[in-house]
């Protein structure tokens, strides 16, 4: 059993040391339960976040996360993981594909979001009647994200929810780094303008 991997609590761009990750993966592929548990501990929550961002249903997100890890475990032990040194890209590619399939199955379309919808999210009150400004702004951001094109949104989700580096995302999507960075930049700008538009509208409303 290789030495324990440090849990890189999902800070984007911070990946475990490749050599140690390779050792743990090799041990897992030989069927060593402890090694597999480490892989699960390291990545399950990040995969969950990615899927949950798309479906907004914790039960479904957990189900999809489980199926992703079942697939990955099977491929690992059958020698189906051939992209040495690119485990995270591979894992999140499986997750993205599975999440997409699930979304198609549910025929859930991304809802086009206009500023009014975002504003409604800001005004939404939680069940206990108390809603922090942070919760409201996260809801607004979530709504704004659903207004992004699918490719733009994917980059944001892989980067922030999946915690992948740009290089890993480029590997995963098979796109040049420059294209990817430009897309990320564009998505951020769009998100910012949507959020700021809502904030301005609110300010104007209050000043009347």
């Amino acid at each position, binding site marked *: 059993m290789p030495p324990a991997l440090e849990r890189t609590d999902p800070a*984007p761009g911070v990946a475990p040391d490749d050599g140690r990750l390779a050792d743990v993966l090799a041990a897992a592929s030989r069927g060593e*339960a402890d090694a597999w548990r480490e892989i*699960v501990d390291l990545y399950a929550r*990040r995969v969950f976040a990615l899927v949950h961002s798309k479906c907004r249903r914790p039960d479904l997100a957990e189900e999809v996360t489980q199926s992703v890890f079942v697939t990955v475990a*099977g491929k690992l*032990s059958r020698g189906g993981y051939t992209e040495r040194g690119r485990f995270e890209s591979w894992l999140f590619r499986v997750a993205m594909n599975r999440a997409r399939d699930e979304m198609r199955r549910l025929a859930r379309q991304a809802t086009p979001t206009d500023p009014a919808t975002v504003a409604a999210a800001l005004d939404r009150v939680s069940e206990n009647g108390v809603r922090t400004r942070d919760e409201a*702004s996260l809801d607004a*951001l979530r709504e704004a994200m659903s207004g992004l094109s699918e490719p733009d949104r994917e980059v944001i989700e892989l980067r922030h929810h999946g915690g992948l580096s740009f290089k890993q995302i480029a590997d995963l999507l098979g796109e040049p780094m420059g294209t990817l960075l430009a897309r990320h930049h564009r998505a*951020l700008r769009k998100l910012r303008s949507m959020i700021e538009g809502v904030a301005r509208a609110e300010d104007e409303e209050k000043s009347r």
Partner: protein
Amino acid sequence: MNAHHDHEFDRINAALDRLAESERAAAPASLESNVYRASRAALRSGGAPRPRIGWGLGLRLAAAAALLAGTIGVISTLNRAGPQPAPAANVTAAAFETWLALDDLFDDGFGTRLGVVSTDADRLSQPDTEEWDDMEGSL
């Protein structure tokens, strides 16, 4: 934390990180255990299938080996018993018996090849027998 070095998106990046954190927090506390339980069986069962000799094949191989050994024994005994009429024919006939027995055991694929072998062997044994008959007649 972002690769973009300009600061114009710092706030939105920070907000996205908080959003991602809230998505992770939406997972049940038992997520990792549940995922582990669901997937560990796949890790065990997904291993490359190892070649395994089942009882059926093992028994058939053992039976084939026993038949072959028996045949060789019979041939040796016959050879030791002195001059035989058309020993080549005897050997061929014994070999046929073995092949036929093997054919029963391995009913796939052997039949065609056995047919060819037995035809060839018939052809081989025929002149020997005739030659022996001729020799007997001349005596």
